[in-house]
């Protein structure tokens, strides 16, 4: 069983037992980079994601005496399609298993952004939604009821206008609360049609126990039902050969 720190190394994240790992996800053009800069200031490094010509930005910040490593994921609308950016974002969430994931959403067209929020919530429960561009939304007479949104999603929601720094301290506090376990989100689970739920349960039961510990079994069962070859081919590099062998055998999977 590979340890989380070994898997993190595969994403160019040096192990640091003192620091919590935080991922920053979001659609393109939501002000994600502004949030990244507002959180990390000048303490940033850039490089590439291993094996990809996709930019990786990492930064650190200290809050209430605790150290945080923030990783900026590529801006994507989804984690299911096949671009290099989406693969990077999805692999990081699944296998580096960040201690918290911030999903940045655009307050001026919130609905479009909720697709990604729900997809992230299907992978990890340690999610905090950051509704950004609140200043622009206000100018367009759009009002966002963040409390209601948090209730509906089952995860914390913070409103920000990162360009003016508004809400950034609250976001840091939210991340800290999430990582320290002072907030335990209960993401609303998407319930599919009975026949799909039935099949999901059956597939999930067939997933070996060691793999269930490594990542979200329900999510993996969905990808198997989907016959999502991109995800399944990608999983291999994060598993021990024996674990992969069992998975492959049980589901009669032929890698591409």
């Amino acid at each position, binding site marked *: 069983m590979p340890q989380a720190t070994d898997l993190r190394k595969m994403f160019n994240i040096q192990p640091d037992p003192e620091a919590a790992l935080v991922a920053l996800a979001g659609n393109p053009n939501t002000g994600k980079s502004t949030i990244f800069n507002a959180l990390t200031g000048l303490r940033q490094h850039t490089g590439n994601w291993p094996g990809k010509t996709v930019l990786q930005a990492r930064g650190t910040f200290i809050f209430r005496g605790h150290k945080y490593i923030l990783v900026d994921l590529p801006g994507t609308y*989804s984690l*299911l*399609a096949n671009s290099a950016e989406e693969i990077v974002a999805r692999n990081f969430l699944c296998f580096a298993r960040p201690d918290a994931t911030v999903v940045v959403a655009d307050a*001026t*067209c919130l*609905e*479009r952004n909720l*697709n990604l929020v729900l997809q992230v919530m299907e992978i990890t429960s340690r999610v905090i939604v950051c509704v950004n561009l609140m200043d622009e939304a206000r100018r367009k007479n759009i009002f966002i009821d963040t409390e209601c949104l948090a209730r509906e999603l089952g995860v914390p929601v913070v409103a920000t206008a990162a360009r003016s720094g508004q809400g950034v301290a609250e976001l840091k506090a939210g991340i800290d609360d999430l990582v320290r376990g002072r907030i335990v989100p209960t993401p609303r689970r998407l319930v599919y049609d009975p026949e799909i739920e039935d099949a999901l349960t059956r597939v999930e039961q067939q997933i070996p126990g060691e793999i269930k510990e490594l990542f979200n079994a329900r999510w993996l069962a969905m990808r198997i039902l989907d016959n999502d070859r991109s995800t399944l081919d990608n999983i291999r590099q994060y598993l021990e050969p024996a674990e992969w062998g069992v998975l492959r055998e049980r589901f009669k999977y032929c890698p591409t």
Partner: protein
Amino acid sequence: MEKILPLSELPTGQWGRVISLNARGMIRYRLLDLGLVPDTTVQAVRRGPLGDPIVYRIRGALIALRREEAGQVLVTPL
């Protein structure tokens, strides 16, 4: 009986409601990710010089689709 036509045939300026998607695989995911799920209202905003691509208003954003992609979305004009 509602009139059903491919999104690519929706006249410029007209609104339609998504009935279903004919696409499979990656294109289907792409279209769903853009917000084209059943019951979504969508407007054909303008057409490119040769009628392709076509710009649509989908859930508050303007998005250009190729005729080929839009043709796989079935809508009913509103």
